[in-house]
């Protein structure tokens, strides 16, 4: 599975702390004393609980490698992540479906960050070249006082298939959440991104970022919502969707909802073709149009 990821996406290193799941089977797991990882295989499902223990700062990233090598498979992962008080860790998830044909990947995650904890979760997906796959990453994240959560979802190589990304974060006092989704869609891919932040606590803040390049006949639907409830809560939605073909479709729905006169919720969206000013700038340096578009798109997906 890791070889397939390396072949199509890039180098991958399995860290000492790791968990590898193929289809609905745990292939390998290892956890140092700062972590508690339990797994349970059920029929057509794997249940995972990963706890970062109190006061533990895990220096090296925790590798998660999830995937399906066979065709016609449904993978169901129920994941619970708990960061106990004053803990911190980075999780690097590699999700690989190289033979993406009639595959459904369902990830149902619950994430709890207790007081003063910090989590960075980076996930890179590869769905094969056929992309006949449905991927449903679903996460509900709760941030308790003074914790911070950063999530980055990237799908840049191969065909995406149908992606239904649905993440919601509840931010209590003095917390920070940043959710980023970056996707390069092609052919008839359908990318549905739903990100929501509920800024319930005072001084809570959140940034929701979506960057999607839609090639050929692909479709992108981005729904970003920030709800400002707590005193001095701050939120920002930033959505960019670039269409490189006449047949691609981009839709964006930013919802900025403030229910407190001290909160500040903003949004910006850029949807359409490649920015003409950027294009003119690069062409005036002697680059041809195609090369200029490539630089703009690669920059966006970087």
């Amino acid at each position, binding site marked *: 599975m890791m070889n397939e990821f390396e072949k199509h996406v890039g180098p991958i290193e399995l860290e000492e702390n790791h968990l590898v799941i193929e289809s609905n089977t745990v292939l390998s797991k290892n956890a140092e004393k700062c972590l508690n990882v339990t797994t349970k295989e059920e029929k057509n499902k794997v249940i995972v609980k990963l706890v970062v223990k109190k006061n533990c700062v895990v220096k090296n990233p925790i590798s998660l490698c999830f995937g399906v090598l066979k065709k016609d498979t449904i993978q169901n992962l129920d994941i619970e992540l708990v960061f106990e008080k004053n803990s911190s860790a980075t999780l690097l998830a590699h999700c690989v479906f190289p033979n993406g044909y009639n595959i459904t990947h369902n990830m149902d995650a619950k994430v709890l960050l207790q007081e003063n904890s910090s989590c960075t979760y980076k996930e890179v997906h590869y769905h094969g070249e056929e992309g006949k796959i449905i991927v449903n990453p679903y996460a509900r994240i709760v941030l308790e006082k003074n914790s911070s959560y950063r999530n980055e979802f990237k799908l840049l190589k191969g065909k995406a298939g149908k992606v239904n990304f649905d993440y919601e974060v509840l931010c209590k006092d003095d917390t920070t959440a940043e959710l980023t989704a970056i996707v390069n869609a092609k052919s008839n891919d359908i990318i549905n991104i739903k990100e929501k932040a509920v800024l319930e606590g005072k001084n809570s803040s959140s940034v929701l970022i979506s960057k999607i390049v839609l090639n050929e006949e692909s479709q992108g639907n981005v729904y970003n919502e920030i709800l400002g409830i707590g005193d001095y809560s701050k939120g920002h939605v930033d959505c960019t969707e670039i269409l490189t073909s006449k047949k691609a479709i981009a839709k964006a729905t930013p919802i900025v909802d403030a229910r407190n006169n001290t909160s500040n919720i903003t949004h910006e969206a850029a949807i359409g073709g490649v920015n003409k*000013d950027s294009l003119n700038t690069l062409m*005036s*340096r*002697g680059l*041809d149009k195609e090369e200029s578009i490539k630089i*703009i798109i*690669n*920059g966006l997906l970087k």
Partner: protein
Amino acid sequence: MILKLEKLNYGISDKKILNDFSLNIKEGEVFCLLGKNGTGKSTLSNIIMGVKKAKGKIIFNNKEISGLNITERAKQGITIAWQKPSNIDGLSVEEYVRLGNKEATKRDIKISLRSVGLAYCDYADRLLDDTLSGGERKRIELASILLMPVKLVILDEPDSGIDVISLFFIKKVINLLKNQGKSVLLITHNGDIATASDNAGIICKGKLIKQGKPLFIYDYFKNNCGDCDNYSKEDLENDE
């Protein structure tokens, strides 16, 4: 002549922005074009660069280039330092400066950044995004054109919306370009910058109405040119 503009006409709906506009720029000359807000200065620079199409002839280096696109004109030897330089997501300052001259060495980049008062170690890896101030972005724009092997540089209001320090570096860049033997079309309404040119002219109602030595022209401009009633909305938006 490096650039000959012959009877350029450009309008939006019924409004004429350029009206039989003609201008010659010699090789190695720094020509300053003065004009009030909205008189078509930025429209002219866009027409020369190939962003907009106008009626009339544009002859560059003895070749008619009116039918060429932006890239082709840049390859012929024309470039522009944009009035509002665009940011490019994900591109570093070094990558941007190198775009116009892929042969440029790290040393070349260092020198060009230093010429506009930016230290390589502080700026090379920074991204070309909103974290840069307007003055910093304009200076990076100038550093990038310093490296380009071109014959004509259009400086479109390099002084708009910047600080005094940046102003000093703009004058320095104009002199460097001149020393490199490049011709410059400097578009501005700043008298201080205008004095760095060899010759100057005034654009009014879409025509070049006066031409001469920069001090004389700037003096005339200051005392005689009010707001233009032939303004171009596009240019006003650019000026804001």
